[in-house]
């Protein structure tokens, strides 16, 4: 029972981390139609920037530098690179971000080497937030989850209750009309891109410390983040939240379930016990890597617009 609770909590927190990254991606797609391949690179850059700044500014300063630094990088990418190819269409934008993805990865390898760096949660933050049964639950994990929740609340309030949020929501729905009403949509786009990148940077600065900071982290997470955005519905922040949690919990749950396929099939009487323990002794946890894609496949088959997407996408 305790392990189930721990698995659930881990799933929720991993999901919330996924959400921190995917919310920016889905917002940018919703507003600008750009499927930003380099978005997970912002996550990686956040971790590396924070890792670098930690020695100078301390852990919290590092997190701040990671967030703001990546926001700035995002702004520069939008203002000085993406904007120039915008008139050529979305394919060119996609190719550009695809190129950025590799450029960032190689740059990181160039400066920090191909292996993981020793970026970790400082000793002072390594304590248990609470204990479940025998297991103590690390405080920093809870902090990651709490940050994501605060962030979601902040985005939600900004978009829902402020005047500037009204302008942004309008620009997502119809940028041409917002332009025609005298708003500088390009400036809104740059700002949104910077905010989205900054959120990914924050996720990287926190997630990188807890998990690992390596040049592969963009590749590893990038695919999952795209799955989240597709499952949630392109452009929907609420959908991204649901999909992130769903994938986080699903992946973590099967890892903790100590059963094999054979046992499941034998229990419902489809195969004999012998077959179950010989041929089908594949543990359910080995499907953890496949599950997100299976989920995406099912969503694309039965609800192509995603959980909370509308028919536009």
């Amino acid at each position, binding site marked *: 029972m305790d392990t189930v609770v721990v698995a659930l909590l881990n799933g929720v927190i991993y999901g919330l981390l996924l959400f921190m990254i995917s919310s920016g991606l889905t917002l940018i797609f919703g507003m600008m139609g750009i499927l930003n391949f380099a978005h997970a690179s912002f996550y990686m850059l956040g971790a590396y920037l924070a890792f670098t700044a930690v020695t100078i500014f301390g852990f919290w300063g590092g997190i701040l530098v990671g967030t703001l630094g990546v926001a700035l990088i995002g702004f520069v990418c939008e203002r000085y690179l993406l904007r120039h190819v915008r008139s050529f269409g979305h394919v060119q934008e996609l190719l550009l971000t695809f190129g950025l993805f590799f450029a960032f990865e190689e740059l990181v390898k160039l400066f920090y080497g191909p292996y993981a760096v020793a970026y970790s949660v400082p000793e002072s933050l390594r304590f248990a937030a609470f204990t479940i049964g025998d297991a103590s639950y690390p405080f920093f994990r809870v902090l990651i989850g709490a940050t994501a929740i605060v962030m979601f609340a902040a985005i939600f309030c900004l978009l829902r209750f402020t*005047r500037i949020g009204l*302008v942004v*929501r309008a620009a997502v729905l*119809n940028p*041409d*009309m917002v332009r*025609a*009403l005298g*708003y*500088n949509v390009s400036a809104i786009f740059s700002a949104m891109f910077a905010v989205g990148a900054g959120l990914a940077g924050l996720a990287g600065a926190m997630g990188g410390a807890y998990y690992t900071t390596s040049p592969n982290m963009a590749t590893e997470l990038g695919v999952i983040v795209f799955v989240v955005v597709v499952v949630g519905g392109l452009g929907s922040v609420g959908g991204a939240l649901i999909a992130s949690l769903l994938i986080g919990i699903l992946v973590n749950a099967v890892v903790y379930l100590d059963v094999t396929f054979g046992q499941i099939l034998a229990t419902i009487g489809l195969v004999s016990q012998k077959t179950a323990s010989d041929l089908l002794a594949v543990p359910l946890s080995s499907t953890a890597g496949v599950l997100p894609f299976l989920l995406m496949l099912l969503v694309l088959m039965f609800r192509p617009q995603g959980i909370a997407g509308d028919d536009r996408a």
Partner: protein
Amino acid sequence: MSDITLSLASVAKSFGIVRVLEAIDLEIARGERHALIGPNGAGKSTLFNLISGAFAPTSGTITLNGAAIGGLVPHKINRAGLGRSFQITHVFDKLTVRENIMLSVMGRFGKRWSLLRRGPVWTDIARETDAILEGANLTTRAHKRAGDLAYSEQRAVEICMTVGTGADLILLDEPTAGMSREETEHVITFIRRMTEGRTLVMVEHDMDVVFNLADRVSVLVNGRILMTGTPAEIRADARVKEAYLGEGAH
């Protein structure tokens, strides 16, 4: 301010080697209601897009209220005094009618980037928004999502938005497209009322609308203005009949 609101001098537009518009000269007087007609592919929409800043003209000058606007970005042209609607309805379907109109009024009061709504200017914005809603008989619809309104009401909201920015030149792209006869008549009355005291340029296919609403009409054929005149003159002209009315009038 002069008596000319919008003036186009030798305006041309090419896309690659295709010349869509050549040497357009047009002057539109303050308070005039001007209609652009012409067969499909004549360049009406391109001309609209040049005036509103979606494209930059290849050559020639466009002047709005005495200021050159050719090649400026759309939001700057809007701030110079131009409001436009689109061929396909461009209301923000998931926002309420009131929010739609407020967005346009906020721009006029220079409150494009406010986080909160404090201070007397927001009282003015709210009052102006409600006045537009009232004037358009949309008060009962104020808190409905714009996307849930009937099509003709959505077009009315869009026209309110072009007016709400404080623009004195209004461009309407086929405001009655896809409407029933009854809705069309309603919208004509509505346009006339809402654009009172402003200058109006519209693209319209429905000849009844054109002859009913416009003071002057320009006929665009193959990227050139064939003629400009009063509805009666246009109706009587043989070349126009041949180029357009003969085949195009339904």
